[in-house]
């Protein structure tokens, strides 16, 4: 079983955590990633910083700029991923970011580097299924999952297009908007997840606007996974190079809430 499939087959919902690579510096990121794992995160999303993060709210925008200001290069991110894989052979690692840094040296180059670094999946915000040739075929033939986003605007007619060639898990963006504080009503999330699950076998993780253990637990009751990003990124902003400790504690509280939300029958 792949690392990603494994993470969603533990008989309970999965916690997916996001931080930006190189924030506050490339040297500080490994300890923060270790803290996420120690705190109980099941999947690690590592953000690739970009100068123009147009789908992100203020917290992750600022993290992108802090990382770039610290001199983070693509080579640093790949090194962080490679070292992470050596330290944590079992924990799935997903790179998340924007099209230009991922495709600028050609999709084959990026896919090969991801494979070499032990990356399990890639989420690219601004490559919709319509532009899949730009990245998807290269990733898939290198054995890397291309994880797509479904949103409140993805209607039933469009859903099969989004699901086609998606693997790993399906990321449900619960609000029509940017990352940050805005939250969707629980009822709407439950309906959406049910709709998605009737169309795919893939696990469905829900993100955008999830901040507290209580919120995470409520969503975990209706989904296969919960994604927390901005809340952790804000802790990195607050604690800087000393963020590992507080991030570990926050992750533990989130993981406990998510893992105990419900039991999921083994398939």
């Amino acid at each position: 079983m792949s690392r990603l499939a494994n993470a969603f087959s533990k008989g309970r919902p999965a916690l997916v955590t996001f931080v930006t690579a190189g924030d506050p510096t490339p040297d500080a990121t490994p300890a923060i990633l270790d803290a996420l794992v120690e705190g109980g995160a099941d999947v690690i999303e590592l953000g690739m910083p970009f100068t123009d993060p147009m789908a992100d709210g203020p917290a992750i925008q600022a993290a992108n700029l802090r990382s770039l200001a610290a001199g983070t290069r693509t080579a640093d991110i790949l090194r962080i991923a490679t070292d992470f894989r050596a330290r944590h052979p079992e924990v799935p690692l997903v790179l998340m970011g924007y099209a230009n840094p991922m495709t600028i040296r050609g999709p084959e180059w990026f896919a090969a580097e991801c494979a070499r670094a032990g990356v399990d999946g890639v989420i690219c915000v601004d490559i919709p299924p319509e532009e899949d040739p730009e990245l998807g075929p290269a990733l898939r033939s290198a054995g890397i999952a291309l994880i797509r986003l479904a949103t409140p605007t993805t209607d039933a007619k469009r859903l099969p297009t989004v699901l086609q060639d998606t693997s790993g898990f399906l990321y449900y963006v619960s609000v029509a908007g940017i990352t940050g504080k805005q939250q969707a009503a629980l009822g709407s999330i439950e309906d959406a997840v049910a709709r998605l699950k009737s169309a795919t076998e893939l696990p469905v993780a829900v993100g955008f606007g999830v901040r507290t253990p209580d919120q995470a637990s409520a969503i975990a009751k209706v989904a296969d996974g919960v994604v927390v990003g901005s809340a952790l990124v804000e802790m990195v902003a607050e604690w800087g190079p000393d963020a590992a400790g507080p991030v570990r504690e926050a992750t533990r509280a989130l993981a406990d809430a998510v893992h105990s939300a419900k039991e999921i029958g083994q398939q």
Partner: protein
Amino acid sequence: MNAPNPNSFRNQPDERGHFGQFGGRYVAETLMPLILDLEKEYKAAKDDPSFREEFEDLLEHYVGRPSPLYFAPRLTEELGGAQVWFKRDELNHTGAHKINNCIGQILLAIRMGKTRIIAETGAGQHGVATATVAARFGLPCVVYMGATDVERQQPNVFRMKLLGAEVIPVESGARTLKDAMNEALRDWVANVHDTFYIIGTAAGPHPYPELVRDFQSVIGREAREQMLARTGKLPDLLVAAIGGGSNAIGLFHPFLDDADVKMLGVEAAGHGLDKQHAASLAGGRPGILHGNKTYLLQDEDGQIAEAHSISAGLDYPGIGPEHSWLKEIGRVDYTSVTDDEALQAFQLLCRTEGIIPALEPSHAIAAVRKVAPTMGKDEIILANLCGRGDKDIFTVADALGVKL
């Protein structure tokens, strides 16, 4: 009906919104359904005579079209070569070509039942034009503008406010046009249900590059007819400044299949191509930003560089995808001129023709100044005078060391 000409330069983009390898729809999933909807609505509008009638009626009676085609005798004499003619889009309502596109897009917005308008702006010309059409149709309007541009374009900020728009200064990045566009896209994803994004240039995700080009092509269509009526022939060379490329493609597109008409797009070389500039074709590489694949100023990792131009309307690290394609296939030539050359051309036109141009078309005039003397006196250059300079007098005074 004529069969479509497979060798035409005027049949782009393809079904997927690609101009060769450029263009496309690189947007977040949240926006994708809306973009597809817009494409469908635009196709229907194009075939709807009542849409075209309303567009043309507003262009005539509200914008003041057709704009004149003007032969510039003293500039021609001073340059001592080809005859220099101008398409006078600076005489439009609101003082630039931007309004042509805004009229078309707001009619689309209304057709789609959208009730709120957003836009990005650099110099403020597109912001003013958008605020203008929003006022004309009674829709609320929010304009995103980089905080740096808010400071350097105060008169336009006040104009937008007078017209009832809310101007939101954008504090991220270098606080210029690129950042304003990021923020407008963020607003849009959060408000897709009721909001129409009026993009100000021939860039962004498909179908924007196509529809902006089509709305701006009124410039080239009029110019072609006017030139034939006045001189009995077509111009030898078209010249236009390029920010995102909307005034240029609007002039060029109707002439693309006239094999004898050469074309020159003029990018902003800022402090010089070896220093900070905004010439994405001259100094950039293909990449993906703001919904399209096109030439971008960027580093090896694909991080976008900050542009610089004295002209806020050209101060953008990208260019519309159709220009990237026209460059690669060689149909259009592209060059660049510096801030200093544009400033000299600005003064030259004031002095020789009694016309104060905007700093954007001053770049085109600077290029005309270089090429006209190399051409014969029987040859014709047609340049797009796409904006007037009232908005720029503070910037120019500052650059010339004059205190107002």
